[in-house]
């Protein structure tokens, strides 16, 4: 009898673990990855503070305010003082930069987003569920906690990174722990560590993120996301004419 009971529990645990694994699909995880970085189909606004560190150089701080609706985002540069008033409109691979001094709006190429602070924005601004195919390629234990290893491969043209690996918690919430961003030649470019989460309107969002340059690990950026607010944003706001305006 004892032997049967033991066997029953073994079978139960096996079935339970298999069924729980079956519930967590790659699609579910990639949706979850998008959810912790925004509100998917709803308009929302938030602020970003970037502090970038380079070896033997003073850290540089810049602040951005961002409006997002689906694949459109309007990014306003708040600091440093020299860049205050600059703004960028992004819609898929189309990007326009507004220079306040001359009132000019210039179309910029997607590759330009890989340079400077805007490249950091790209790491967090990517729509993974739309632009990438996902599969669970393994499981890993980090500091006693279990994670799914999710591999994302780009399916859309013009995306910044060809492949992304994401470690997502097996526990409830499935929060990402870190992401690795790879070039088309499969070279690791950046690693993002999701360091802290915070609740906004009852939903957990990434609050602090550490982004480390894979080639020069002395180059890294701390990013703080805050003041998430849901807002009704009409598509008319995401036009070039809005770039120089406060509201």
């Amino acid at each position, binding site marked *: 009898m004892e032997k049967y009971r033991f066997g029953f529990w073994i079978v139960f645990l096996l079935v339970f673990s298999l069924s729980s694994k079956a519930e967590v699909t790659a699609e579910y995880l990639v949706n979850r990855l998008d959810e912790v970085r925004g509100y998917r189909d709803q308009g929302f606004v938030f*602020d970003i*503070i970037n*502090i970038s*560190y380079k070896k033997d150089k003073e850290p540089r*701080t*810049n*602040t951005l*305010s961002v409006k997002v609706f689906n694949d459109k985002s309007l990014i306003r540069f*708040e*600091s*440093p*003082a*020299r*860049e*205050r*008033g600059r703004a960028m409109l992004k*819609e898929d*691979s*189309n990007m326009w930069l507004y220079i306040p*001094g*001359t*009132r*000019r*709006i*210039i*179309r*910029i*190429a*997607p*590759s*330009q987003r890989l*340079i*400077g*602070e805007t490249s950091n924005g790209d790491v967090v601004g990517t729509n993974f569920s739309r632009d990438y195919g996902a599969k669970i390629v393994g499981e890993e234990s*980090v500091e006693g906690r279990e994670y799914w290893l999710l591999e994302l491969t780009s399916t859309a043209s*013009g995306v910044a990174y060809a492949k992304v690996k994401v470690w997502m918690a097996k526990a409830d919430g499935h929060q990402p*722990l*870190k992401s*690795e961003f790879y070039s088309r030649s499969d070279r690791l470019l950046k*690693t993002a*560590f999701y*360091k802290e989460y915070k609740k906004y309107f009852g939903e957990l969002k990434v609050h*602090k993120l*550490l982004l*480390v340059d894979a080639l020069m690990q002395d180059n890294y950026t*701390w990013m*703080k996301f805050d*003041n998430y607010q849901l*807002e009704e944003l*009409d*598509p*008319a*706001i995401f*036009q*070039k*004419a*809005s770039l120089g*305006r*406060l*509201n």
Partner: protein
Amino acid sequence: MANPSLVRQKLAIFLCIASLPPLVIAQEYEDPFSTESSEANLAGELGSDMLENSASWNFDVSAIAYHQQNGVRDDQYFNPGGLVFRERESQLALDLSGQFSTGSYFSTYTRLALVGDYRVDESGDASDEFSHYLLEGYLSSYSSSRRFGVNVGRMKPQWSNGYNWSPANLLKPVYDRPNLDTDDLTQQQGWDMVHLDFRYGDWNTGFYFAEVEDTLDRNLELPFGDSDYQYALVFNREGDLDTRLVLHQLEGGDINVALGLSALADDNITLRFEGAWEHQRELALAGDMQYADLQDRGYLKAVLGTQVSLNDGWDITAEYLYNEHGYKAEEWDQVIEQIDLAKLNLTQSGFSLASSQSTEAHTAFNFLIDSFGLLSVGQLRREYLFFMWGNTRVERKFQYRQSIQYNIDDQSQYHNLEFIQNWTEHFSTRLQAQVFSGCDSCEFGLIPSEYLLRFSFYFDF
């Protein structure tokens, strides 16, 4: 000889360290947001507009100061003999702008320039001047969806999508030389107007009703001087192929048309086309100065351009300009012939500014002065090339930008070299050298300065 077990031990330690996951490395990066004080400081940087969504304001002040030394030519072809040119100049300017908004229904924007100039000409005479300009100042009201809005006041709409030439900016009078003098705030002065704005999805339409006024008194006595008002209807479609159509009419005049297109050619290449077809010729035809008969079928000005983005934030920009407003070779020969004739008349009459002279001599003198004024219009000839390369797109301490504008018709050239140093978040400097080369009667050879050196200081408060 090395102990093999020690070597193995070191190798094992090395492999252990090398195989540590990046997570361990992450522990070394101290969180700058962890202290309350840093959070408070950084929150302060976001300004009022981010803390209060319903009513917001923004106020920016920038100071620009420069000193410039000009290498004046010994002889300027259009100079009747009485003109002296600036050898040194210094400027201190404040660029003040403010926005206030109570949401979409009401907002205001104002931009004011205060400019103090000190100039010394080649004869040693000095002059100074203080001026203030209302560059822009308008009231805005939009519906809550932002689909309909009205703007009233002084505005500078920007319809061009280019770097060096802007044919689609059809409102008159226009002085738009983004790469010639970036410190000249007066280039940003707008027109007094009413603007109706309709937006839907990727489309928008604007109607503009504006005054025609040369408020800066640049002495551009152009054919449109008789019109008091001008109108424009602008259609935009934004997306993979940006399209802009501008219909412009001076009061009582015919309709001018401009078309602008821009698109991505590749992940790192952008393309643009911009063309304008106008009834009025841009070149000054003041007083008795008329070199050639005007054609009656209109004038085309078109730009084809591309920008290639390289690694590390470097960009290469190239543009080609075709300009029917400019003089073709035979017209330019007539210009030079008439200049020569005017100079001969002056020489024969022994003209001097101090004494009264014959009517012919005065006519000749004025003709040369008006001809000299042509240089302020720019683009005197038909075809030009522009190349620019630099790394100014990305915020960094040292930036570099170099450009060349090449007049294909007469092979004269304008070179521009800039070194920009961003010392702090607020303070920058710029060292600029410009060289104008070409034959005596070629466009850039006619610029009074053969070269100039400028050292500029910028402080953003």
